[in-house]
């Protein structure tokens, strides 16, 4: 029963509650120093910060892949079933011996869904990420962008309540990255899962998210908690990136990130 009124977006149906979380690695490297955050269900949040600042560490702790040194992280009750969380890594990390559809079926297979059903869902999901004609290709035959699409399809095939992405499109070229950003935003609008998206790209954060949280350099603290959805429309056409309201938001995030890089506030 801790107070959650410190946050302007606090709601009763929060998906993730982060309280006074600190993370210290191997004795004395402090990665995260006292972060408090509440993320309501269905929100699209971007974590923005200098590289190596600890934002990925925070994401890993939300996923349960790491434990905080002190403080606690809560996920809403329906998020405690493990397959309701999906995680997308910086690289696709596909099983190289399986075809695209085989890779997308994997989470359902591990959950014990029967063959016909999981194949149907996997093919449907691949269609939704625009890979209908590559379902039987092996990862070695796919381009970087296509592999990432398979990885995204694998994450979404279980219809997760919470999708965590750790700089997922950072290794891609600008065009592929923008296409994938657009597709991800569309899928989120259709399905309304909660998303935490870690990135170091200002334009990606501004385009994708409803709320951008800017972290300082290590040890990570919240420098800015900004509600983008007040300024940007829900549906975001590709051309939004060239409009002045978008530029203004980017400028705001840029200034905040600059001060984060300097280490001051």
């Amino acid at each position, binding site marked *: 029963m801790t107070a959650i009124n410190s946050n302007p977006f606090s709601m009763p149906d929060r998906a993730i509650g982060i309280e006074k979380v600190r993370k210290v690695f191997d004795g004395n490297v402090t990665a995260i120093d006292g972060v408090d955050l509440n993320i309501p269900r269905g929100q699209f949040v971007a974590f923005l910060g200098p590289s190596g600042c600890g934002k990925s560490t925070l994401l890993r702790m939300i996923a*349960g892949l790491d434990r905080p040194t002190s403080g606690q992280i809560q996920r809403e009750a329906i998020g405690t079933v493990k397959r309701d*969380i999906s*995680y997308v*890594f910086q690289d696709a990390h596909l*099983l*190289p*011996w399986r075809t695209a559809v085989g890779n997308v079926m994997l989470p359902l297979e*591990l*959950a014990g869904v029967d063959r016909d059903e999981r194949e149907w869902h996997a093919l449907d999901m691949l269609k939704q990420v625009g890979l209908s004609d590559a379902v039987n290709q092996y990862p*070695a035959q796919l381009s970087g962008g296509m592999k990432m699409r398979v990885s995204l399809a694998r994450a979404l095939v279980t219809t997760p309540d919470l999708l965590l992405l750790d700089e997922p499109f950072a290794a891609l070229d600008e065009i592929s990255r923008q296409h994938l950003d657009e597709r991800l935003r569309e899928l989120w609008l259709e399905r309304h899962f909660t998303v935490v998206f870690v990135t170091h790209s200002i334009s990606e954060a501004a385009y994708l998210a409803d709320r951008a949280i800017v972290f300082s350099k290590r040890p990570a603290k919240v420098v800015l908690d900004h509600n983008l959805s007040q300024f940007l429309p829900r549906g975001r056409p590709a051309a939004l990136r060239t409009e002045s309201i978008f530029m203004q938001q980017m400028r705001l995030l840029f200034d905040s990130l600059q001060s984060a890089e300097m280490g001051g506030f």
Partner: protein
Amino acid sequence: MITGQSNILEYSNVPPPGDDRRWRRIKSVLFPVLTFLLVCGVLEAVVRAGWVQSFILPPPSEVASALFERNTDLWYGFLQTALAAVTGFCLSIVLGVMIAVVLSSSRIAQQALYPYAVFFQTVPIIAIAPMLVIWTDTKFQTVSIAACIASIFPIIANTYAGLTSTDPALRELFKLYGASSVSTLVKLRLPWALPSILTGLRVSAGLAIIGAMVGEFVGGGGLGSVIESARTQIRTDKVFAAVLLASLMGLALFTLVSLLSRLALRHWHPSEKDL
């Protein structure tokens, strides 16, 4: 006009890529065969000329006729050795992979057992073979166990290396999806280790045949006995024929493993590029 023509001529000198590749393939078979024929010819000539006596160095023609002699124990010995070596090899695949799985699954098992796996490898097979004769009931058992002991270590070591090098991100992914340790092993760790396992098998294939023949020299049977008895009869041609058969057996087993490797990995592993 003239320069144009000379350009055409220059281009026509370059053979089309298909022909080039075929010629390269023909050369890759032709040159080793020519080397073989040349060496055989020289050996034949040296012995026929009387410079070396034929019981010391049998001429290739005699080795060839020993190979196809009627009513001989040579081919029977070949089959015995092949059967025992393949049995021992299969046994070491099954046991080796199982041992590696146990070693890689528990830190305690790894610390308690791995030093002995390494130590086991340093014990010479020739020194254990006499004990194997005492411990086993039949020659076949002695020989196949000797083949297994000689060939198991590369399989353990390579499988272990493969099992412990699984992509950490994929391990975390399996953990997030709540995969059991059995399905993580079957769906992730073993397939991930497959290229390493196959590398181990390639090394072990030859060792299995060495182990089998060592077992035969001590326990009897197979090509080992054929060589032993031919030696005492000063049938050097037969000794050479038996050695030739043993080498061909090793080559066949190695080729079989390579074929398996190609079938299993051609879609996804860079070592069998077929993309």
